[in-house]
């Protein structure tokens, strides 16, 4: 691992981050329509219009505004909501934990179900159990998460009333109600991921199980459970954890529909609200944060890989 390699990767990272933030910024600025009109919705007098113009720095060039905004973000100033004057960073403080909880619970549930299923189906590849699990996984892959959400709400919230149909309870307020309020959204998100992880682990494990060292372990009389979970799972789990890591990045802002359906006050709901209320600055900050999070997670996974496997560095 040479310093030159590290330096090159870091330069690349900075370039990608600049591009992603610039895209998030331009996205809102390129869209047709004068932001002032959109914000005023036709009820502003000259003075208010001038004030908005001033606040948005609309008289500056686009590039200048981008760097102003970027400078703000780097110092923790994400702008504020016009309507209420609330700082975006304040909202972020309450919304981000909710989304992170949702994403992390989802990954835990998905991995806890998928790992044993993947190992077992690889071990029993070709049997009825394997075939039926695969068919079920295929079904869950095709099941859009909001479709599953409506099924779950209808059955478990409205029909059986085991869980609330929506709303969020803080973990510190009431842990039991907290987990009850998170259960259905987590299930709606996890189902598809279970299917992905299970299929991934299964195909990876089938290859691992053909390695000589597995035959060796079996020949030495090691019980199958130990062979599977100790010796075969370890190399196969690397790919799985990579994909799980990437999914954390995708889900932080990608669970908009589920958050809205279950009335969870996370990042998704905030994005939904900013779009509906024409909160440009807040929206571009949220998009940038999610894009940057995604890039950083990708980068750390890539970088860890290259630490572990020198072939990637030199390839």
């Amino acid at each position, binding site marked *: 691992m040479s310093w030159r390699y590290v330096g090159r990767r870091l330069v690349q990272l900075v370039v990608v981050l600049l591009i992603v933030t610039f895209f998030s910024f331009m996205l809102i600025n390129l869209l047709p*329509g004068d932001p002032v009109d959109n914000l005023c919705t036709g009820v502003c007098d000259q003075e208010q219009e001038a004030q908005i113009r001033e606040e948005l720095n609309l008289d500056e060039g686009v590039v200048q505004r981008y760097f102003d905004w970027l400078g703000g973000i780097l110092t923790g100033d994400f702008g504020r909501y016009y309507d209420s004057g609330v700082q975006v960073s304040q909202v972020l403080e309450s919304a981000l934990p909710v989304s992170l909880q949702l994403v992390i619970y989802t990954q835990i549930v998905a991995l806890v179900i998928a790992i044993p299923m993947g190992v077992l189906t690889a071990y029993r590849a070709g049997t009825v159990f394997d075939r039926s699990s695969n068919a079920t996984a295929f079904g869950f892959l095709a099941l859009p998460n909001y479709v599953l959400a409506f099924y779950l709400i209808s059955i478990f919230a409205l029909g059986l009333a085991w869980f609330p149909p929506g709303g969020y309870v803080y973990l510190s307020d009431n842990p039991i109600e907290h987990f009850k309020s998170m259960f259905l959204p987590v299930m709606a998100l996890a189902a598809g991921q279970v299917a992905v992880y299970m299929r991934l682990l299964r195909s990876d494990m089938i290859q691992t199980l053909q390695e000589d060292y597995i035959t060796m372990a079996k020949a030495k009389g090691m019980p199958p459970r130990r062979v599977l979970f100790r010796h075969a799972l370890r190399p196969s789990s690397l790919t799985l954890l990579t994909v799980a890591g990437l999914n954390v990045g995708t889900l932080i802002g990608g669970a908009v529909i589920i958050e809205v359906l279950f009335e969870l006050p996370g990042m998704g709901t905030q994005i939904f609200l900013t779009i509906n209320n024409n909160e440009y600055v807040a929206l571009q900050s949220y998009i940038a944060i999610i894009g940057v999070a995604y890039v950083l997670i990708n980068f750390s996974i890539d970088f860890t890989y290259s630490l572990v496997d020198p072939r990637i560095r030199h390839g």
Partner: protein
Amino acid sequence: MADEIPTVADGAVEERFVETVEGLPTDPEHVKARRRRGLGLTAWLALGWLAVVALMAIIGPYLPLPERDVSCAREGPAAGHPLGCDQRGNDNLTLVVEGTRPTITLAVAVIAGAMILGGIAGLVAGYFRGRTDTALTNVLNIMLALPQLVLAMAIVRFMGQTFWNVALALVIVATPLLGRITRANTLTFSEREFVLAAKTLGAKHGRVMVREILPNVLPAMFSIALLAIAIVIVAEGGLAILNVGLTETSWGTLIAENRGQLRRNPWPVIVPVTVIFFTVLAFNYLGDVVRERFDVRESAL
């Protein structure tokens, strides 16, 4: 004994999971198995369902479907109204048939757009390689890095909630998918002898791309297009739930309009949602069938 761990040589392992990233699946047993297999029952069921959807889209408005009936409002399935009614007494079956045409028109338009844009980008990137490739691939990757649903929401919201703006937003979502698969396959095919032969004979770049490479990458594009259609149909519903979907009656808008009534009467939501699920399932399955037939894989490099 159950302790025996099955291997590929046992023939116990299903074919598509043992394909390695590079190199063809070499085991003659499963190559034969794939050739031998006709369209299975599941594939026919999937095709049958899609035929029903196509029919609903084309002749839906002329079908003798149950009319609005106030006495049926908020009821579940009953005689004359097999799927129940919404809160105003509109028949759920009639509504979902009515919503088919906009949904399917949108999906087809978006996929056509994405195949053209993604196809051109992928062909050019994979054929010319080098800087062109790096630039185009980076654009596609950045499109994937931005949260796509949010992007689509912002576009529809700020450009106006019209059919073509929704289509444009979804084209931006679907294009990178098609671009990447086209590029990966173009990279492999542009190295082949027949391409070299065409170049040697003096064929121009455009001709080589369109006449030599394109026909070979089409199966891959087609299999991804089937998956992408499913994604577009799901996204249409998602945008509608977030109030930035189509304005005409579609599968998505039916969900959005009726989800507030879920507690009193789940049928107006469950019906379109289930229709979406079946359609997505059918497209995914057929996409898989095509992929297996033509041995498509994305990571050629």
